[in-house]
C-alpha cells in the first residue's frame, strides 16, 4: 500500500540528485552563501541581491571543489547576476535536461526548489501558486511570465533553480522581487538577461523620459476611439526623447506602433534594447483630438 509513497518519495529525491548537478554555491557575501545555476559552460547565474560584493567571488561545485568567479554583470531590475567560473565538463552535460516550457505549466503542479548554501544540495517541495503573462516587477524589470510558487525560500536558496517533475529548469528563484512571495524568473527572461550582461556588462534598455499612469477615457471618447483606457502623461523629462518628440503633460497615450497601451507594461514592451535609436509611432489624445507623434527611443543610462 505504501509502495506508491516510496516511489513518489524516491522520484523526488532522484530529481534533486540529477538537477542538483547544475546547482552551485555562490560565495559573494559575508555571512551566508547563496546558490547559483550553471547556465552554460563557464557561466553561472545567481541572484543579484545575494552578491554583496563585486570581487573575491567563489563558486562551490557539486564535487566539493571551489573555484574563483568573476562578475560579468548585474540586473537589479530582475534580481539576476551573471558570473564566469570554471565549471567542469560533467555539469554541462547535465544541462541537457534542459529548460522547461512554461506553456504546459499549470497552477497546482509540483515543483522543487534547489539550493546549495553549503556543500550538499538541499531541496524543498511546493506547488505552482500563480501563473500569469508578462509581469512588471516593482524593481523595474519585466519578466516574460509571472511564476509564483508556495515554496518557502530557506537561507541560501536565493539564486537557486526551480525545477519541474521532469527535472527541467523553470527559472531562478528569488524572494527579493516581490515582498512575501517566491517569484521565479523564467528561462526566456534569464536567457535575455544573460545574453545582454555577457555582451554589454549591463542591461541596455530603451528610454523615453516620460512618466505615465493608467487612465480611463470618458465614455464619449471611448466610443469614438474604440478604446476604454490609455496612459496619461504625468511628467516629461526636459531634454528627453519624449520632449523632443513633442509629447506634453496631459497627453494620453492611446497606441504605440498600432498597439493599444493601457498599462505601464504595454509601453515597456516597446523599450527593449532592439528599439534603441529607432522611431516609435504613438497615437496620443490631446485636447479631445487624436494625433500621431514620433519619438526616437533613447537609452536608459
Amino acid at each position, binding site marked *: 500500500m505504501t509502495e506508491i509513497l516510496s516511489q513518489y518519495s524516491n522520484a523526488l529525491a532522484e530529481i534533486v540528485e540529477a538537477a542538483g548537478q547544475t546547482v552551485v554555491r555562490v560565495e559573494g557575501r559575508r555571512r551566508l552563501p547563496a546558490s547559483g545555476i550553471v547556465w552554460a559552460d563557464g557561466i553561472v547565474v545567481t541572484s543579484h541581491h545575494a552578491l554583496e560584493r563585486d570581487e573575491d567571488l567563489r563558486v562551490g561545485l557539486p564535487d566539493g571543489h571551489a573555484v574563483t568567479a568573476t562578475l560579468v554583470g548585474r540586473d537589479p531590475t530582475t534580481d539576476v547576476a551573471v558570473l564566469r567560473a570554471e565549471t567542469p565538463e560533467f555539469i554541462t552535460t547535465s544541462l541537457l535536461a534542459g529548460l522547461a516550457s512554461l506553456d504546459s505549466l499549470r497552477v497546482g503542479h509540483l515543483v522543487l526548489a534547489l539550493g546549495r*548554501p553549503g556543500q550538499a544540495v538541499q531541496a524543498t517541495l511546493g506547488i505552482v501558486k500563480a501563473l500569469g503573462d508578462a509581469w512588471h516587477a516593482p524593481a523595474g524589470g519585466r519578466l516574460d511570465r509571472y511564476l509564483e510558487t508556495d515554496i518557502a525560500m530557506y537561507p541560501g536558496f536565493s539564486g537557486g533553480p526551480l525545477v519541474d517533475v521532469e527535472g527541467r529548469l523553470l527559472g531562478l528563484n528569488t524572494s527579493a522581487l516581490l515582498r512575501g512571495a517566491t517569484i521565479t524568473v523564467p528561462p526566456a527572461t534569464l536567457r535575455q538577461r544573460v545574453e545582454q550582461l555577457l555582451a554589454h556588462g549591463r542591461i541596455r534598455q530603451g528610454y523615453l523620459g516620460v512618466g505615465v499612469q493608467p487612465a480611463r477615457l470618458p465614455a464619449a471618447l471611448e466610443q469614438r476611439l474604440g478604446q476604454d483606457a490609455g496612459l496619461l502623461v504625468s511628467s516629461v523629462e526636459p531634454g528627453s526623447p519624449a520632449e523632443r518628440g513633442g509629447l506634453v503633460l496631459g497627453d494620453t497615450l492611446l497606441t504605440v506602433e498600432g498597439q493599444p497601451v493601457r498599462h505601464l507594461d504595454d509601453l515597456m514592451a516597446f523599450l527593449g534594447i532592439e528599439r534603441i535609436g529607432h522611431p516609435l509611432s504613438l497615437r496620443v489624445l490631446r485636447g479631445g483630438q487624436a494625433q500621431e507623434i514620433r519619438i526616437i527611443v533613447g537609452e536608459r543610462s
Partner: protein
Amino acid sequence: MSTLLQELNEAVAEVAERGRRSLVEVRSRGRGVGTGAVWHADGLIVTNAHVVSRGDPRVGLPDGRVLPAKVLAWDPRLDLAALTVEATGLTAMPLGASRSLRPGQWVLALGHPWGVAGAATAGVVIGTGKEWPDAPYGGREWVAVNLPLRPGNSGGPLLDAEGRLVGITTIMAGPRLGLAVPVHLAKAFLRRTLLSPPAATQPKTAIL
C-alpha cells in the same frame, strides 16, 4: 479523476495511522508539553530532553491511559530523553535509517501541536548534516524538513514513506523549517546511556 492521487492519499493516511499506534503524548503538571515515540514494547519512550525538563512527566498512551513516567536518560546537548512507563505490549515504532536520507524525500511528522492529538504534517527532507549557518544550534547534526512544527510537536517522530522513524522533531527553525535529531543519533544515545549505570545519567531536577 486520478486514481494515482487517491492511492497517494490512502498511502499517506496509512502511514499516519500506523504511526499513531506508537505515538504518545508527554504531559507535565497537568498539561501536554510534547510528543514521544514508543521505542520498545515494554514501555521505553524517546522524546526531547527539553520536553521533560519541567519535571513530573506523565505519558498519554495510544489506548488512552495516562501513566507516570520515569526519566531513564537525559542528554540536553542532543536534546533527547529516554522515559519508561509501566506498560507492556505497546506498539514500538519501526526504525529507519537517517544517514541515507536524501533531499526531496517525503517525510511525515506526527505530534500534538497545540494539543491537537496525533496531528500529522507532511513535507520533504531539505537536507541533512551539520551545516546550518542560519539556524539555531546550527553546528549540530540535523535532518532539516520543510514542514511547520508547532509547540507540542517536540519529541515526536519523523517518519519516512515506509512509516519508519528517521528523526525526532525538535526545533521549529522557521515557519516552514523544522529540525529533527537523526534517528542514528537517537540509537547511539540509547546505547550509550542505557547500557551504563543509571546513576551516571540521572538528569538534574529542574528547579522551578
